[in-house]
């Protein structure tokens, strides 16, 4: 791994002196990395962001940027750009004056600051809106101004606190691509906080899943999606079937699911016979069974939701709730209350050890 640029060492935060909002978080990020903190509200992701920004003091632990501890540096000396969910633009300043603010605070000569701020507004595609006040701009435009303002002073880090939460779906997707493009072109190390897993999947180099004040898993989007370390991560990232599994003969790759029967196990390190585990099957892993296929189950369909390109079947197999996602074509003949045979490739499943 390359030299860490941002390091969180044993970071803890307690508001009442007893319970911990954040509990011994360790994380490193490489320069230029785009990291997403993903988790439900109250999971510790925003607390971590506030500690990095310096708005809250850590109870324990250390934060280092480029090897320098900043844990006790006040926010205005950290040089970290932050974009807030509600934009937090200064209402009494125009877009250009907002973007110039950090340069003004750094006593940059006015002509040079104006030039730099205009260039940054151009980068976010708003050069024509320089003289507008925030109230005269749409939510998406305001968010871009906030982004330009957080980037114009070449920050050591860029923190984005659910910046797209207040925008509608189309705009969100456009801005996701836009933020990613700008982040790449500037190469700024970025931490993005969200509770939206599809946003996390779309944007990140690495996803850090938070729950209960702890990091549950940190990995690339595909690692987190395909090989979650526990049931929480499996449930929180993507749609999932979690089937309780009895490892009858792990040495030869066999297990049994109550109500479904014997199944072949994914090729994961051997375990002890008799152990219990959970088998994760993503809905799209399930397909209509061909004659003679192994790893099959019979599903009683209760609901069919058509999305056009695909269809989600919701029902149960031998008493266990099951969701299957089939290509739109394949799902055409399937009606509600039908009974169908499904199968899956053993390698597409993932075993989660019992907690």
């Amino acid at each position, binding site marked *: 791994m390359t030299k860490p640029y941002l390091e969180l060492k044993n970071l803890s935060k307690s508001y009442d002196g007893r319970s911990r909002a954040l509990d011994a978080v360790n994380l490193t990020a490489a320069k230029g990395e785009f990291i997403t903190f993903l988790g439900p509200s109250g999971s510790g992701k925003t607390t971590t962001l506030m500690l990095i*920004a*310096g*708005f809250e003091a850590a109870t324990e632990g250390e934060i280092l940027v480029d090897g320098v501890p900043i844990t006790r540096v*006040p*926010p*205005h*000396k*950290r*040089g*970290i*750009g*932050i974009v*807030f969910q*509600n934009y*937090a633009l*200064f*209402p*009494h300043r125009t877009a250009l004056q907002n973007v110039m*603010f*950090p340069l*003004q*605070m*750094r006593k940059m000569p006015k002509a040079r600051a104006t030039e730099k701020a205009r260039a940054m507004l151009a980068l976010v595609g708003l050069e024509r809106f320089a003289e507008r006040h925030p109230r005269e701009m749409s939510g998406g435009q305001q968010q871009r101004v906030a982004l330009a*303002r*957080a980037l114009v*002073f070449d920050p050591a880090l860029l923190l984005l606190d659910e910046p797209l939460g207040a925008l509608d779906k189309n705009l969100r997707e456009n801005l996701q691509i836009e933020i990613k493009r700008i982040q790449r072109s500037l190469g700024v190390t970025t931490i993005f906080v969200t509770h939206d897993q599809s946003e996390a999947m779309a944007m990140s180099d690495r996803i850090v899943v938070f729950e209960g004040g702890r990091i549950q898993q940190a990995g690339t989007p595909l690692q987190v999606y395909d090989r979650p370390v526990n049931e929480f991560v499996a449930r929180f990232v993507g749609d999932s079937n979690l089937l309780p599994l009895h490892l009858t003969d792990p040495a030869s790759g066999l297990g049994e699911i109550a109500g479904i029967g014997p199944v072949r196990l994914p090729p994961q390190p051997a375990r002890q016979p008799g152990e219990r585990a959970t088998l994760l099957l993503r809905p799209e892993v399930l397909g209509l069974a061909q004659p003679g296929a192994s790893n099959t189950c019979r599903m009683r369909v209760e609901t069919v939701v058509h999305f056009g390109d695909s269809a989600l079947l919701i029902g149960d197999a031998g008493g266990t709730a099951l969701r299957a996602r089939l290509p739109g074509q394949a799902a055409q003949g399937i009606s509600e209350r039908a009974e169908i045979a499904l199968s899956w490739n053993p390698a597409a499943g993932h075993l989660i050890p019992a907690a």
Partner: protein
Amino acid sequence: MSATAAATGESSLKSWLLLAPLLVFLAAFFVVPLAQVVVMSVTEPEFGFGHYAEIVTDGFHLRVLMETFVTALVVSLCCLLLGFPLAYAMAAAPASLAAAMMVVVTMSFWTSFLVRTYAWMVLLGNRGPIAQFAEWLGFAAPELLFTRFSSTIAMTHILLPYMVLSLYGVLKRIEPALPRSAASLGATPAAVIRHVVLPLAAPGIANGLTLVFVLCLGFYVTPILLGSPREQMVAGVIGQQVEEFLAFGEASAMAVVLLASTLIVLGLYHRRFGLDRLWG
């Protein structure tokens, strides 16, 4: 079309009827006496604008007006300097603490200002705690009562709640993310106040200054009881002219000048901010 017109006509008739008692009251006890004051200022003891000419030409009246304006200005600025930190702390405090502070601030509203004025007389008096403390320290007891200092400090105290409430209103509306975001962009705490808080609080500052200034212009009891007899304010002089010299014409003219100055201040405020915002 005509039905709607009739309906609006009816509802506006209704609102006029609801307003009528108040309008009659105001006409009988405010407009008429005020008009009488205006009339008296040019008819008492004989018709003419002599009183106004006197006000403008003789040094005494102009000096009193000047004193009054300067005092009102000083009191307004003192209220701003004392009130701003308090309002800022209130706006930043957690809800329960802010409510407690609000009770303390409004408590002075509930106490009669006559009582508060007498309280200052006790505090600043020749045998009062401040004088005694000074003597205990070995200094001569300072002359505090019946000076401009004593009336200014008491008026500041009495008018401070108006300023605090005006400022609290705007400061509370500043989004908490703004100071944070300014800090993250490199603003020191002082720069946050100067570049973010003050510009956004400007309407409340203008509001508080105008309220306190206008209320202070007409203050009567406090300067009479606490102030220096040599440095009177307009209201006190008007009272003196009526009670001691029965000079109704002269007093009326002064009253009209005072009223006009107040209206000019309010007019300036209205042109800049709109009068409807003055009371929050």
